[in-house]
């Protein structure tokens, strides 16, 4: 049995000829929160998007090396299947504006035929919205368009949409970057609960050291396309081995 939910082996990515990720050997432990931390442009999003192969939708990208998810090499699998159990929440809230709040959450289970009846679908939608800590705020307006929600609520809706597929791995790309601190804390709480109660594996990208320390079980520090340091959160936060990590945590770079 693999201990790591995700493991990359000499992962290299080029975007339009630019070497964006260099020989990355990254790991994410099962049922834990692994934070990818690093300054802007260091390659955090690129690493995250290599894990669900979303990187491939941008033309001009080249990927070399391996990405294993629960021991399986995903680059020899069907990308749509991978994204069915490795779902993602993006940096900018992007609920589908032409669907209702309900439909936004229901669309995934419907497309992947995870449910057999309307009741089952209702149940899964409610479950996902509760886990995203949004249910109480939207239960009376499920048919409204998501554009009537605040940015923070929209982002939690995106979290619910990603959860409705009952993924084993959840990828979060700075999910709180564009929203207020209260909503940001709600999302952090929701994610910690998910790991504890559902055993989901979370990979969380952030560029704020304080947030990394708040949520992480493990921290990976990326700088300029290279994985500089990786380890349990406490170790990295208290005595980083690498000078760059130390400077970053002190806010001197980034």
């Amino acid at each position, binding site marked *: 049995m693999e201990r790591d939910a995700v493991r990359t082996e000499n992962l290299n990515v080029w975007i339009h000829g630019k070497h964006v990720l260099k020989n990355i050997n990254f790991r994410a432990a099962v049922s834990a929160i692994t934070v990818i931390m690093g300054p802007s442009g260091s390659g955090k999003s690129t690493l995250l998007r290599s894990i669900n192969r*979303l990187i491939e*939708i941008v*033309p001009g990208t080249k990927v070399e090396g391996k990405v294993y998810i629960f021991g399986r090499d995903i680059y020899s699998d069907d990308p749509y299947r991978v*994204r069915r159990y490795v*779902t993602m929440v993006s940096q900018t809230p992007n609920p589908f504006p*032409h669907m209702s709040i309900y439909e936004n959450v229901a*669309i*995934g289970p419907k497309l992947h035929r995870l449910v057999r009846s309307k009741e089952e679908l209702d149940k899964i939608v409610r479950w996902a919205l509760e886990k995203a800590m949004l249910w109480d705020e939207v239960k009376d307006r499920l048919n409204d368009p998501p554009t009537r929600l605040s940015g923070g609520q929209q982002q939690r809706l995106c979290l619910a*949409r*990603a959860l409705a597929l009952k993924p084993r791995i959840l990828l979060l790309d700075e999910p709180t970057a564009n929203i207020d601190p209260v909503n940001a804390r709600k999302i952090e709480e929701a994610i910690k609960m998910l790991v504890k109660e559902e055993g989901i594996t979370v990979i969380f990208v952030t560029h704020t050291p304080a947030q990394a320390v708040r949520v992480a079980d493990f921290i990976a520090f990326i700088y300029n396309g290279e994985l500089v340091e990786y380890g349990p959160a406490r170790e990295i936060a208290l005595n980083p081995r690498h000078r760059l990590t130390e400077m970053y945590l002190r806010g001197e770079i980034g």
Partner: protein
Amino acid sequence: MADPRIIKEKIFLVTIFALTILGILPVFHVLAEVIIKGSEAIAKHGLGILTSTSNGILASLVGSAILSILASLLGIPLAIAAGLFVAEFSDTKLAKITRVVSRSLLEVPTVLLGMLVYIIMVVPMGSFSLLAGAIALALVMLPYVMVHVEQAIESVPPIYREAGYSIGMTRAEVLLGVVAGIARRGIATGVLMGFAKAMGETAPLLFTIGAARTTLPCSHSIPLANVLDPGDAVPLMIFQYAQMPQKMYHDMAWAGSLILVAAFLAVFIAVRLLVKEVKT
């Protein structure tokens, strides 16, 4: 002393306002003229001016109705499909060629499209037909609708594609279920523009439908086959009757104009109401 920036602002607003009025006045003038002259003609000659084939424009109305349905059936699905394809697969060779061809088609004088259909269809079949006219109109519609669909699709922010893919949607599901869904208003508007453009055209019909103004297209026993009969269309009738010396012909042209405008407005309003705007 007033702030010169505020004075400039006032001048700016007044100018914009005046120019806007100047721009829309002719539109209202034309509309008013059509409504007044058209209703006068109907009031003077009675409804017979619309419902008779000998002293009225029934054949033109029927022809236009058939042409609009047929041309839409032929042109719109193809245009939407091509627009989606070109927007989604924009770096493929086929998409690039399709784009150039459609842009060129946009510039071709529509009378040439009528000629083309005349050569490849009317001559070999030995007869003018509504179908030939509908094909010519579909060719007019095609590039317009296509370009609008393309632009509507391209204007959807990439974050929504990303959202679709990140919950395991396939490319087709993202394109049809997400991107086209968000762009639905733009697509509908494009379809309307193409439709209106084609339906107001006279030139593509000159060599194709045969201007059969006193008979209805009903020589065949199978209803659908009647599209192979010659027929007429309101714009063609207006174009030709307006040049006649007798007042009666002018009245029929005005009545036809009124019906045309009313039909356009009805279609526009219906589509705008049915297809809701998606706010992003």
